[in-house]
């Protein structure tokens, strides 16, 4: 922090005001969404008609709350299932990648590393369509060749999981590698020296050390999976995850039930985000 630079009080105040305005700008949309989840009106807009919990717990039309809205509940479950698989796969592959890139020297390592980073700079929608095109051609080819059905390669949850996994793995790899780099290999050597097998040493010493990073990567993966829209949009079949369902609703015209869902999402994301930060902080 710089203390010694004298500035005119006018400037200081203007600067402070600007920063305050900025944070209002950041908070405004989210705050608005949250506030209107409690408005006793069928539109999420002014005027304020009074406070109600109906958009969460209501069960009489038109006041059907989140917890009684079948399609929304179903899509939350769908999102949960997708997020579970994505985070499981991403953490697994991310951990393998971390060991590969941190522990091994091999030809073409730099090239593979760049390739590994590529999903970060490919727009999500293009990731989606490329997987869509490829899997459909593969399905066509296989069906022509074998006469069987390959529904897993048609738009649907499997493709959604694969599509999200394809770029979330990069984040998982980065988070876990960062942690593995800080690992002192002599600890593993000590375990070997004390008679552990190679895999035994990794399991007893290295993996526990990596665990906070793996957990953080898992949480980040769940977060990113839950909120992903672009890639999912291109790959979704009949079972839509939450963001897609909400998007369809939004196009038709919104009711405060969307605000209620959003409020839940905001709370859960903030908690998950803080959890991932705490996990990563505990590392040091």
């Amino acid at each position: 922090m710089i203390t010694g630079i004298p500035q005119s009080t006018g400037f200081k105040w203007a600067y402070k005001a600007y920063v305050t305005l900025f944070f209002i700008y950041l908070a405004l949309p989210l705050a608005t969404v949250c506030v209107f989840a409690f408005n006793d009106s069928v539109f999420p807009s002014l005027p304020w008609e009074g406070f109600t919990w109906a958009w969460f717990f209501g069960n009489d039309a038109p006041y059907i709350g989140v917890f009684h809205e079948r399609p929304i509940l179903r899509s939350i479950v769908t999102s949960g299932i997708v997020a579970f698989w994505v985070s499981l796969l991403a953490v697994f592959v991310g951990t393998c990648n971390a060991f590969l890139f941190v522990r091994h020297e091999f030809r073409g390592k730099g090239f593979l590393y760049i390739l590994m980073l590529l999903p970060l700079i490919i727009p999500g929608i293009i990731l989606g369509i490329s997987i869509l095109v490829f899997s459909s051609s593969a399905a066509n080819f296989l069906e022509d060749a074998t006469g069987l059905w390959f529904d897993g390669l048609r738009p649907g949850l499997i493709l959604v999981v694969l599509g999200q996994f394809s770029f979330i793995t990069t984040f998982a790899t980065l988070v876990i590698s960062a942690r593995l780099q800080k690992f002192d290999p002599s600890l593993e050597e000590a375990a070997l020296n004390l008679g552990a097998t190679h895999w035994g040493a990794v399991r007893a010493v290295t993996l526990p050390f990596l665990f906070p990073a793996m957990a953080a990567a898992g949480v980040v993966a769940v977060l990113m999976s839950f909120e992903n829209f672009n890639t999912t949009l291109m790959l979704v079949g009949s079972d839509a995850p939450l963001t897609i369902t909400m998007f369809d609703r939004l196009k038709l015209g919104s009711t405060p039930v969307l605000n209620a869902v959003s409020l839940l999402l905001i709370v859960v994301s903030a908690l998950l985000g803080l959890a991932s930060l705490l996990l990563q902080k505990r590392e040091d």
Partner: protein
Amino acid sequence: MSDIPDLECRSISKSFDTFKAVRDVSFSVPQGTFFSILGPSGCGKTTLLRMIAGFQKPSGGDLLIKGKSVLDVPPNKRPVSMVFQHLALFPMMNIGANVGFGLRQRGVNKTDVTKQVERVLERVGLGGVADRPVSSLSGGQKQRVAIARCMVLEPDVLLLDEPLGALDLKLREHMKVELKQLQSEFNTTFVYITHDQSEALVMSDQIAVMNHGVFEQVGTAKELYYEPNTAFVAGFVGEANRFGATVDGKTGDAVHMVTSYGQTLLGLNAGHGLSKGDKIDVFVRPEAVRLSRKSSDVAGMENSGQGLVENVLFNGANSQLILRDQMTGAEMNVALPQTGEFRDLKRGDVISFGWASQQTRCYRAGIEK
């Protein structure tokens, strides 16, 4: 020329919340002086310097440069320049641009900037490097660039905050001499901060010893060494053996005392107003003690004894003996002269030692924390 000092501080203080980092410090630095502020870590040196540079506002007191108060002058308008602890050379500019930075801010035209930069770089012995990046310089050269960057602006006072702290020992020894030379060449007033007493002793015309936010003593290197005013200065400047003792009697400035080991010594009242029964701290420099194999050589000295050699710490010119007084068991460090006379001295030998009462400085105990 004139009697107006380049820099004058009048009971300047600085508090951070309730903590007083600098308390009522007053001093003045005449033109062309190399003035050092010496003190242990955390005593407020940097705070004092940053107030002079303008990066911190004093909580009280006044600050004058060439006789004019500069309290209301922002740091970018003050006629002082600062060499930062880690030099703060701009890595995004080459050497020439670094040195010319201040001139450009003053709106000096391009060709003049180039000319002046080259001239000042030559004066610090670095002609022709203006186009090179800062990172291509060695530690000592960076130091000189940092000084050139300030000197090109011809400041009234140059402030230096432990600029040698980051250098290795060898280079530090070399730069001490060089800094002093640069200072006399530019004939600019330097205010130099350090916690390393040898830097301060070697380079300075005047040294202020600082502790807990106050100046304990201001004087030349010799004054501080031979006539420290306070126990802190006696302990901080140079080496010293330190005893606890009780006053037994006084004749003028001479103090009779009994140390905690039961040794009776004759010393000099260097503090103020001691009387019988007072607890005092006594300082004797290792190099003030005379050694001899014959007890008759030291018999004439006011304080003397026979010591058992506990250890010989050989370190070339800085070799030391650890002696234990045979009568009382008190331990004492004594400088071991490398004249060859004591070359075969070893552990377990017995030797006579003695020192003058003038070299035995007594201060009231417990004033210093």
